[in-house]
């Protein structure tokens, strides 16, 4: 309801939302399309390959290669962790949002991030891993979350830049996941992507308002874009030449496009959107390449990406400390709820 400030046609993410709906339609269509003579039979591996080839979905209790299961657990869990940790940079601004309207919107957005984390944890659990294990993997640092959330939100304009660039990059990354071969993940991503579109638009609107405000407000918006541009490009991961998980994930239809393809797509989308904002993308080498029909651009600093992933970003420690503290301080709520449920069960037993 907050996302309709821009006409649908040229709104950022508008085309992507259509793609999400197309993915949803394809999911239904693939489900209705029977596979003639398809029997699980003796050869489970052949059956698995057949389902993938037919662009149909693997479901939780189907046989699947152990490596497929492991890859999905790792990817879905890290995605879930990112949503949960991702609440922090924006939550940082809830109490200081410049108006009641902005505060209500930001609260709704941060609540969505929690929801996305939960959809994804639920999808990961269908693969046979427990929620406790997943939480433990995050808190003990054995599983990662997206490096982008280790950057600080210094000004209100950062909330806008996160919505436009970080959520924008996330959507470009995630829309193809709506067609992922694993059913529960694909369905969770359809839900997530529909909601992300509101996030991207609210960020864009914040920047648009600032960029058309006082010179100081415009400068604040430009500063935020300057700081968030390259970390957002790095969200697509290392360049294809260094990407370790890609080939197998593509074959299994977990991943549909390479890191570099998605990064290019994001850059091409942002250029026109930046023009409408009246803000400059901080890349002097950015220019249209007629031959490639795409923009040439400067690559992000991948050494920095690796350092941040390893824990040496500006906020890694703060984010993890906050998460551990929130988990520990919430323990009494979980215990109280469990004690209450146990008491009610006992009462029922006595009554019976």
């Amino acid at each position: 309801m907050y996302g309709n400030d821009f006409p649908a046609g040229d709104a950022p993410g508008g085309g992507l939302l259509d793609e999400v709906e197309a993915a949803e339609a394809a999911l239904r269509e693939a489900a209705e399309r029977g596979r003639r003579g398809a029997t699980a039979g003796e050869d489970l591996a052949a059956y698995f390959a057949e389902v993938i080839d037919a662009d149909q979905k693997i479901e939780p209790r189907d046989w699947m290669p152990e490596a497929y299961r492991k890859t999905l657990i790792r990817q879905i869990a890290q995605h879930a962790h990112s949503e949960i940790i991702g609440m922090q940079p924006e939550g940082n601004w809830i109490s200081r949002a410049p108006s009641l309207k902005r505060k209500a919107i930001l609260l709704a957005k941060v609540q969505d991030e929690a929801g996305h984390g939960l959809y994804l944890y639920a999808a990961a659990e269908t693969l046979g891993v427990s929620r406790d294990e997943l939480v433990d993997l995050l808190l003990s640092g054995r599983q990662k979350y997206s490096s982008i959330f280790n950057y600080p939100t210094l000004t209100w304009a950062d909330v806008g830049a996160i919505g436009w660039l970080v959520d924008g990059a996330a959507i470009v990354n995630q829309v193809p996941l709506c067609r992922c071969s694993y059913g529960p993940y694909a369905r969770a991503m359809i839900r997530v992507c529909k909601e992300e579109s509101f996030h991207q638009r609210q960020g864009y609107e914040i920047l648009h308002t600032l960029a058309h405000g006082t010179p100081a407000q415009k400068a604040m918006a430009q500063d935020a874009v300057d700081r968030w541009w390259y970390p957002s490009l790095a969200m697509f991961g290392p360049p294809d030449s260094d990407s370790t998980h890609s080939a197998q994930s593509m074959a299994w239809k977990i991943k549909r496009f390479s890191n570099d393809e998605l990064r290019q797509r994001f850059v091409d989308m942002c250029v026109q959107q930046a023009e409408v904002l009246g803000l400059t993308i901080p890349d002097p080498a950015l220019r249209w390449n007629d031959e490639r029909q795409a923009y040439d651009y400067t690559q992000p600093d991948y050494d920095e990406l690796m350092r941040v992933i390893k824990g040496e970003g500006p906020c890694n420690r703060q984010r993890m400390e906050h998460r551990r503290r929130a988990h520990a301080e919430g323990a009494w709520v979980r215990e109280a709820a469990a004690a209450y449920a146990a008491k009610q069960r006992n009462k029922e037993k006595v009554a019976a």
Partner: protein
Amino acid sequence: MSTEHTPLWEVFVRARRGLSHTHVGSLHAPDAELALRNARDLYTRRQEGVSIWVVPASAITASSPDEKDAFFDPAADKVYRHPTFYEVPDGVAHL
């Protein structure tokens, strides 16, 4: 959050009056009442539903997909259960 204290619940949402409840996902909650409230907050933030069911995941008995063909086989060779099995003579209306 110990799993034994917060069991898994499957969530079904009726989008609108007249439609059936559809499985939308799952969540953890210590009891049915909290499961319902959590389901409302998690799966219907944008008015996606007018009614919610929560069912303990442990209470669901599922057929195994690995046996699905044998399990559902008896229905496969009874084509005469479908109206398209029958030839309708030319000129018959309202059949």
